[in-house]
């Protein structure tokens, strides 16, 4: 399995896959947006503003998921000095950061007509902002720290410590009274989102996952090219 994770191998697969995945992404996104914006029903209470959820929720999921992967890779980077994993996590972080920002912005846009406020210092929203900040610090640590060995060490520590925030985001709505509603999609019981609204939600999640994969592959290849043309590494 680790043979497949050799940087050169990923580079080769990535160069072939990018075109295919970008086409797939556009197709899935088109289906998802049609479903979300046109075909899916309005909500009984919030009418059309429910459509913001189809961007907001998948974006939040992606931001959380990518950071979790980042943290796991970072554990292995820090302990075993795995040379491939730091390239992978460095290339994953940008799309996670973008999605955390998208989740915050769409949340604000939804909050204004629904709650009556753009922003509230609510446990869920604040912890999500902290996640976005962790992404930012993680990305900056690669830019700011000149020494490569040290950059690897410090950035993986940032990801590992930031991971403590992930369960806080997840359970904030259960632990405290929050303005943000509780979870609708439950693993153990029925979800409280009607099935006609779940379909666009899952298609949009697939589209966002493909987008992350695409950005990841492109970023990974750029990093590989930088390494191959030594000296360009720090540019």
């Amino acid at each position, binding site marked *: 399995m680790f043979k497949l994770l050799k940087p050169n191998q990923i580079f080769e697969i990535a160069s072939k896959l990018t075109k295919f995945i970008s086409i797939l992404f556009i197709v899935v996104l088109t289906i998802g947006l049609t479903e979300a914006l046109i075909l899916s*029903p*309005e*909500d*009984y*209470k*919030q009418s059309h503003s*429910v459509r913001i*959820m189809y961007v907001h929720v998948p974006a939040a999921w992606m931001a959380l998921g990518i950071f979790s992967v980042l943290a796991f890779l970072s*554990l292995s980077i*820090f*302990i*075993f000095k795995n040379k491939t994993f730091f390239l992978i996590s460095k290339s994953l972080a940008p799309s996670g950061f973008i999605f955390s920002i998208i989740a915050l912005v769409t949340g604000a846009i939804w909050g204004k*007509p*629904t*709650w*009556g*406020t753009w922003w*509230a*210092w*609510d*446990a869920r929203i604040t912890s999500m902002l902290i996640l976005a900040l962790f992404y930012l610090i993680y990305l900056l640590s690669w830019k700011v720290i000149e020494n490569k060995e040290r950059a690897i060490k410090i950035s993986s*520590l940032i990801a*590992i*410590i930031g991971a*403590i925030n992930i369960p*806080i985001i997840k359970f904030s709505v259960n632990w*405290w*009274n*929050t*303005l943000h*509603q*509780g*979870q*609708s999609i439950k693993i153990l019981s029925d979800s*409280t*989102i*009607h099935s*006609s*609204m779940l379909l666009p939600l899952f298609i949009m999640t697939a589209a966002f996952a493909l987008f992350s994969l695409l950005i990841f592959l492109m970023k990974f290849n750029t990093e590989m090219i930088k390494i191959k043309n030594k000296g360009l590494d720090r540019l």
Partner: protein
Amino acid sequence: MVKKVKLRILFLLAIILSAILSVFLILKSLEKDVVFFLSPTDVKVLKTIDTKKIRVGGMVKDKSISISSEKINFVITDFKNEISVSYSGSVPNLFAENKGVVAEGFLEDRNYFKAVKILAKHDENYMPPEVKEALGEK
């Protein structure tokens, strides 16, 4: 080499544990501020009523909204205790009876709250209007 790996694992464990502990302690000591709103029951058991701005949240009690020329009066309930709220100003679209609400303002006493801002709380139910109607008929 193995020794180095062991040391790094120990180091990480120490860092993670102390970070979790400090986050836990911070959240514990800030609990009053982490909680976005108090329920009417929380208000009942408050030790002191101070003049600081607080938020009270819960359900708007059925048939409790009365609107006069300049004021909206309603009752927030958590189905154990309730508190009367008076407010003047505009309310969000989703403000309605039997729906969640968070009121920001000042406590006059344990049963009376003067709100300066009303936020509607949305619950975790999403469905098309037809489904809601069908559910209502049942």
